[in-house]
């Protein structure tokens, strides 16, 4: 399970070009990690690909922090 958190954080680091230390679970993508609205769409796309899941738009809108993403994926991912 912690593996999911690590993979999520890795994607966030790569995608937003931030330091791993900044990617805490309560970090907000837009307010804390400098993402713009397109970045959040792309992060969701990257999560979908990495974990082979579909994240519907209404669920994607609720994913605002690193922890939100990990939580959603933990309860929906197969692998």
């Amino acid at each position, binding site marked *: 399970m912690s593996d999911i958190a690590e993979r999520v954080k890795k994607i966030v680091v790569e995608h937003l070009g931030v330091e791993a230390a900044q990617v805490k679970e309560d970090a907000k993508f837009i307010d804390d990690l400098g993402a*713009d609205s*397109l970045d959040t*769409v*792309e992060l969701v*796309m990257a999560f979908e690909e990495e974990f082979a899941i579909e994240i519907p738009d209404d669920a994607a809108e609720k994913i605002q922090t690193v922890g939100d993403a990990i939580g959603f994926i933990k309860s929906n991912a197969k692998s």
Partner: protein
Amino acid sequence: MFDLSGKTALVTGASGGIGGAIARALHRQGATVTLSGTRAEALEQLKASLGERAHVVAAKMDDAADIDRLAKEAEAAMGKLDILVNNAGITRDNISMRMKDEEWEKVLQVNLTGTFRLTRAVMRGMMKRRFGRVVSITSIVGVTGNPGQANYAAAKAGLIGMSKSLAQELASRGITVNCVAPGFIATPMTDGLTDDQKKGILARVPADRLGTPDEIAAGVVYLASEEAAYVTGQTLHINGGMAMI
């Protein structure tokens, strides 16, 4: 210049005069093309004349599910989609006093809503690959208006506003969104005009002739090219000087 080898393009309305010329021009520059439209037979003929690097996916632009299917099948056929040319369009001309709701709605649905839906459907792949070219064929009447074409002019003006908005949303991802606005072009549509009508039109065109579909296609090739990477949110008017905006 303007080499499109290795690029893939989807052209809607490819069975028409301008759409066919655009598809041929992109293909000539080296692109793989998917031809879409409603007339499957005409599309197959065009495909046969192009030879390799050509696919056909017929679709109706007033059907949301069909549009999603078109985006998926075009990407599947070509492996990716780099260039989208939104050329599909219809007219239902009538003076406004007599224009029926169906005539208004149909034109808006096909020319504007369908174009938005298709563009939205292909954005995802373009964003991922950090490259995309969206070129929508609008019309001079979208800027100047034209009696009898309130619906068509509104839809074409809508495309310009839509493109400017998308251009701002997507510029940071290497995706450009532009319009080409033809004036009067010699196509089967204008062949139906009487000599008097043609004379009336030409009186307003400094170049004193109708344009050709190839002259529109050349503008599309430019906007689809790597060289046009810094051009976005623009409308390229190709109209023999009929309107200078």
